[in-house]
């Protein structure tokens, strides 16, 4: 039995410990916001937070998450008001939308560690996230906006 905390909720899972976290989220628990794009950690659509770090759930076994805290896009904020989510709406980033959860989850780690990222920092953080529709410029714009929102909130 593997116990995992996902979006602040505890789950007891009777499951093969080798199962990737991605398929536990999607097929077992029913959280489908985290996407399957490649299965080999090349596209970033599957990024979730494991104890705050942006792991690729398609290759992360559920055993690695045992007793740990996982946050998915559904749990990034309680009221859909994470600065990244607000910025994404403000900039109207999305086209097909399939990659965006992964982009946001990766960007969330960037913004936690770097309050004022440059375009170069964004590249370093999100180079592993593919957007097939090409919304990269808007993603950068939204991240800068979210960072500004964050800095403003901190100032109070």
């Amino acid at each position, binding site marked *: 039995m593997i116990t995992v905390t996902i979006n602040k909720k505890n789950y007891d899972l009777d499951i093969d410990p080798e199962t990737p976290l991605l398929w536990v989220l999607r097929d077992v628990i029913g959280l489908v916001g985290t996407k399957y794009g490649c*299965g*080999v*950690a*090349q596209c970033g659509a599957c*990024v979730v937070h494991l104890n705050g*770090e*942006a*792991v*690729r759930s398609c*290759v*992360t*076994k559920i055993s*690695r998450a045992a007793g740990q805290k996982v946050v998915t896009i559904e749990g990034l904020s309680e009221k859909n008001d994470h600065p990244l989510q607000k910025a994404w709406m403000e900039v109207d980033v999305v086209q097909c939308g399939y990659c965006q959860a992964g982009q946001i*989850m*990766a*960007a969330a*780690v*960037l913004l936690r*560690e*770097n309050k004022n990222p440059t375009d170069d*920092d964004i590249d*370093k*953080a*999100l*180079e*592993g*996230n593919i957007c097939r529709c090409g919304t990269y410029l808007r993603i950068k714009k939204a991240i800068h906006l979210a960072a500004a929102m964050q800095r403003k909130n901190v100032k109070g």
Partner: protein
Amino acid sequence: MTKFVLTIAVLVSITGLLASGFRKNTVPVAINNIDSTASVAAFMEVYKVLMSPRCMNCHPAGDIPLQGDDNHLHTMSPIRGKDGKGVYAMKCSNCHQPTNSPGLNAPPGNPKWALPPADMKMVFEGRSPRELALQIMDYKRNGHKNKAQLIEHARDTLVKAGWNMGEGRKPPPLSYTEFVVAWDEWINKGGIAPAN
């Protein structure tokens, strides 16, 4: 008596200076019972392994690891970062799990997966045999390892992982056992650097 002591002291100093090759920034690891021919021969075997993809890919000259049997730049350009563990959402352990991920093209794994840190890059890529040998035997450039630690390093889990990296990755040109024998021989016989 004092003249004698003084002479010895001077001789030892000169020997010491000669042994260090007059390099001010190196701190050679101290070895006894030197056999330079055997040591150099052993190192040429070691060199083959260290310059093979399974080792060299994570000892790159730049700040992006190499990848694959053809040593191409790692896709997605993850960068070393200060501690060698990557940065932001591209930390090594974000993709590289504690064990190999099954399947072709899935990332190999180890709990210690990382590059050397930025202040101790331990570059293999582009090194001649002489350069590499001198680097490894230099306390200041080898991660501050003394002789015992150097010997121990070949037994390190991450080093061993080079022989077990999963589907589609050629193992180093010597078996692990052969490598360890050559490594020990090289170091125990003096850790001598080849002429070139």
